[in-house]
């Protein structure tokens, strides 16, 4: 009895100590952060070129006037990667599944899938965009769209699907073969097993790396500008050319960051949650 009471008290004491320690840690973190950024700010502001830089990059008036314009153009970026992401999710999964199909008859398909992922991971994205954006319309085939926007999105889908297919494949291979055996033993066909047992588990596991790739895609939506469409980056270039001031670039950067940060935090949170789950599973 007395021993119980004592350990109880001990627990409580250590919990309060832990809280105190936690509060002190937060204090230290806040102080060191403030000091660090203050030093950086002082160094930058006192540098010889700062007045020039401030005028060229951080002109408040120009920022206010270019932000709506750039923001409007940014809607095109959002459209580009929303459409691209949806297509990539489906197309990459098809490639990954194709690559995992068994049997000698299907060898050509596997080969094709391997060639595809090798090819499009090897060529710089910007080259794929140029080649498709200028090359495909030049063929003048009837029925083939000539819009550079179409070919820009297609290029992004092709490049990113190659990466995402590999992510999917890693996920599929991480599902233990006993899951397949269990599903097949119940009479499910190979396709049904993939559809209901393997792919759902694989996708769940690869969501964090998948989101990571999509952060890259969001940024690369700016590359489509190189073949014509006026998205945020292109719009800011136009504004810069008109005013001889770089502030519109800063406005564009801010827009990209505003979009990336939530996705990055979501990815971190999902990874942390997975890790918690795994350790919970291991100790049970």
């Amino acid at each position, binding site marked *: 009895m007395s021993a119980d009471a004592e350990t109880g008290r001990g627990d409580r004491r250590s919990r309060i100590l832990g809280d105190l320690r936690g509060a002190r840690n937060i204090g230290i973190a806040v102080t060191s952060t403030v000091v660090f950024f203050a030093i950086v700010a002082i160094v930058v502001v006192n540098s010889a070129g700062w007045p020039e830089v401030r005028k060229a990059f951080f002109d408040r008036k120009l920022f206010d006037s270019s932000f709506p314009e750039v923001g409007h153009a940014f809607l095109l970026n959002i459209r580009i990667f929303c459409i691209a992401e949806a297509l990539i999710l489906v197309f990459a999964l098809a490639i990954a599944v194709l690559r995992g199909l068994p049997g000698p008859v299907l060898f050509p398909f596997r080969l094709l899938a391997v060639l595809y992922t090798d090819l499009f991971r090897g060529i710089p994205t910007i080259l794929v965009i140029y080649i498709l954006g200028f090359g495909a319309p030049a063929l003048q085939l009837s029925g083939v769209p000539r819009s550079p926007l179409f070919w820009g999105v297609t290029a992004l889908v092709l490049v990113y699907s190659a990466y995402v297919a590999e992510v999917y494949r890693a996920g599929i291979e991480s599902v233990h073969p*006993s*899951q397949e055996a*269990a*599903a*097949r*033993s*119940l*009479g*499910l066909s190979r396709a049904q097993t993939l559809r209901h*047992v393997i792919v759902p588990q694989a996708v769940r596991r690869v969501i964090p790396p998948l989101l990571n790739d999509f952060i890259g895609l969001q940024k690369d939506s700016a590359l489509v500008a190189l073949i014509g469409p006026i998205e945020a980056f292109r719009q800011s270039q136009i504004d810069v050319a008109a005013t001889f001031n770089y502030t519109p670039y800063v406005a564009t950067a801010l827009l990209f960051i505003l979009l990336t940060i939530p996705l990055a935090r979501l990815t971190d949170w999902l990874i942390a949650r997975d890790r918690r789950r795994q350790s919970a599973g291991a100790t049970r």
Partner: protein
Amino acid sequence: MSARASALRLEGVHKSFGSFEVLRGVDLDVSEHEVVCLIGASGSGKSTLLRCVNLLERIDAGTILLNGEEITRRDVDVNAVRRRVGIVFQAFNLFPHMTVLRNVTLATTHVLHKSRAEAEAEATALLERFGLADKRGEYPDRLSGGQQQRVAIVRALAMQPELMLLDEVTSALDPELVAEVLSVIRELAEAGMTMVIATHEMSFARDTANRVCFLDAGRILEQGSAEEIFTHPREPRTQQFLERIIAAGRL
């Protein structure tokens, strides 16, 4: 042997992995409603034998007949055969991303094409019968090992198989959870389910099996009633195996 119809018949079954011959001519006849226990040392081929019957492994030679029908022919529809043969694994192999209910109804809806409502009603009744009614909405990782294994048995039973194969279904369980699973199997035996059971639980084999087969190096070396095998084993290898089991305190 028995006047009853043959449910499962293995004739000269051979199976190799690479150059290693795991099954070296297995003959076995299981009649309807019979419970056959396979015993034997680790690596003697018990799991492989069961996986061959369920066509999870393709045999190299011999034939396997299910209710008189050859299932090892090349042109046989493996999915159709697996519908008729239930298997339960040592490691449960439940689908972790599905609830208990969905685990049980996945195959009945997609393979037997029952309506969702019908499948769920049947699954619920089965889960109830094995004391799992309140777990139907849970995910497998929230269940104890014993509960998970009972769900796995229910999942196989929901297909109304002609034959059940159980592969050391209690080996992965904590000792205090073994009894609940064994009592489920006993109940199935009493209900007349034809079963082939690979097990290390000798006392269970003794009081449930109609016949015990001792598997040694890929052959059925000796078989007979539990009484015969456990108290008067003829073969020296069987005697050795049982002595080791007794020494390990498992009989």
